[in-house]
């Protein structure tokens, strides 16, 4: 495989994986820009009440209508992106950092440390992911920090295991023996030789998990366990609006659901693209 080959692979869009990933990145970039520059796109604040328009249908003033609190749905969607995206991403980032650190140490040193870590992950993994998030969130509370921890706790065992098995597989490779022969310390072998080679599968699944984290957050909010009112958060918006659908007031939950769907799709597209490129199975 020559350098030119490599280059072509990086930039060619022939592979459908790249197209998927780039579509996903575009979607998320657009949503992020709109979230960051939200005041430019909406004249209403996310918690601003329009006392003259409770549950108003979409109008020129309120593009996506207002909800039962008289708040503008469109601007809540925009500001909601800040919370949803940042919680989704930060919980995965925490899970990746903590999980891969623990996993690489357990995988590298093995022995009793490994055994204990594995039994602990067994315990955490004895729950379906959403149920775990639900239980932890219901028991701990509804602060943003606690929610991030609850969601990242769900992912952590997977990253621990993934990193551990990657490290263990890499340990069998002769370049690690070579590194040992070259007089590297354990720390240096781990940091310089093992971890850089073990990150790829983790990076591949991280976007998928980001999407899942956002869905989880929204699901918790839907059950009333997520971010409390009046913060703008998509899941809570859908939940609050779900009851309004009865009277035909569909806009309060259909629009937030749509944006939630699109952003999760964005993450999933990136993840699927990465998966395809790395030729791995889920």
């Amino acid at each position, binding site marked *: 495989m020559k350098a030119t080959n490599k280059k072509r692979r990086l930039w060619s869009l022939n592979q459908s994986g790249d197209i998927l990933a780039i579509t996903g990145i575009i979607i998320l970039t657009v949503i992020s820009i709109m979230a960051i520059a939200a005041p430019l796109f909406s004249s209403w604040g996310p918690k601003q009440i329009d006392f003259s328009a409770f549950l108003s249908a979409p109008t020129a003033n309120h593009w996506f209508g207002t909800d039962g609190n008289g708040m503008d749905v469109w601007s809540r969607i925009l500001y909601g992106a800040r919370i949803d995206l940042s919680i989704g991403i930060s919980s995965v980032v925490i899970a990746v950092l903590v999980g891969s650190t623990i996993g690489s140490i357990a995988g590298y040193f093995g022995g009793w440390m490994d055994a204990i870590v594995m039994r602990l992950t*067994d315990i955490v993994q004895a729950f379906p992911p959403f149920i775990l998030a639900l*239980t932890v969130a219901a028991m701990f509370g509804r602060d943003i920090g606690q929610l991030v921890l609850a969601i990242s706790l769900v992912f952590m065992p997977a990253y621990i295991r993934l990193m551990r098995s990657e490290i263990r597989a890499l340990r069998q490779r002769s370049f690690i023996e070579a590194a040992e022969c070259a007089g590297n310390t354990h720390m240096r072998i781990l940091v310089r030789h093992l971890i850089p080679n073990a990150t790829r599968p983790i990076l591949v699944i991280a976007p998928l998990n980001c999407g899942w984290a956002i869905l989880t957050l929204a*699901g918790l909010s839907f059950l009333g366990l997520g971010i409390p009112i009046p913060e703008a958060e998509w899941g809570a918006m859908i939940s609050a609006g779900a009851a309004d659908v009865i009277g035909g007031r569909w806009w309060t939950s259909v629009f937030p659901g749509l944006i939630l*769907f699109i952003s999760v799709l964005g993450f999933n597209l990136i993840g699927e693209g990465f998966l395809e490129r790395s030729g791995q199975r889920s």
Partner: protein
Amino acid sequence: MRLATLIFRRLQRLIPVLIGVSVVCFALIRVLPGDPILLIVPETATAEDIERTRIRYGLDRPIVVQYWDYMSGVVQGDFGTSIQTNRPVAEEVRERLPRTLELVGYGFLCSLLLALCFGFISAYRPGKPIDHSSRMLALAGNSLPEFWFALILILVFFGFLGWAPPPIGRIGTDIDIIRVTGFMTLDAIITGNWSALVSALHHLMLPVLTLGIVAMAPMMRTIRASAMEVLNSSGYRCAASHGLSSGRLFRNYVLRESLVPLPVLGGLVFGNLIGGSVLVEYVFSWQGFGQWALRGLLLRDYPVIQSFVLIIAGFYVVIFLIADVVQAILDPRIKF
């Protein structure tokens, strides 16, 4: 013999996990804020009254004693008594669990069938429009918030088209059914109550579709990847080059081998469905296990929370045990 070894090994691992789960849960709910006793004593109660109630529920004893007491009950099938409702937890579980399992079971079946169809079609026609569209469909399904999707389905199929029954409960309100197992469709078949069966299936339609579509993607992706791998494997190419008919090739050389990675993934998907079912049940007023547990969690009903956690964990671990066994049956190479 090989399977017996497998099951034995897994059980060996399962029991410490369950004990660990119960210990962690037991300790956590007692450490965290929220006191179930305050929720049931009258507000006229003095500190002594509260203490007395606490003693009545045995919550004053050292946590280790409480744990021992609870676990020795569990071993005998006694999951304690709900602090809130005063009913035996086991009884409430018997009532609630079948509802959820029925929903999740059909949902899983639905997503499995969809995944098998689309997965194999995709694998046999990689890069073709049918491949792209079924993958996009799966990806989109995977990105849907299930509770929202359920709402949209209700809006369309019940609100506009009128094809679906009202999203309330598991069966028409005008239909009587004798409860045998708690599984609505099963009970209808056992008692030969065909109108109940039709009604139950009708009510299952939308929630099952919701779960099926949402959970399909990972299984489809795996089947597709695995089938493509098999189709490109030298094992398959060898058989194909030796002139076997395509039907025989699919049955004997593609199907089984492609399904090997599925059981373990299926276990994960099943878990996701159990999680998702909490949300979907909420939308369809299903009155299932998850909602029961949620109420227990919010009201800090210790025996309910403990039992929920233990049952879910036990159930989930058993799902994976089954998955492992199925995988071992499918793939003779797996050793333990």
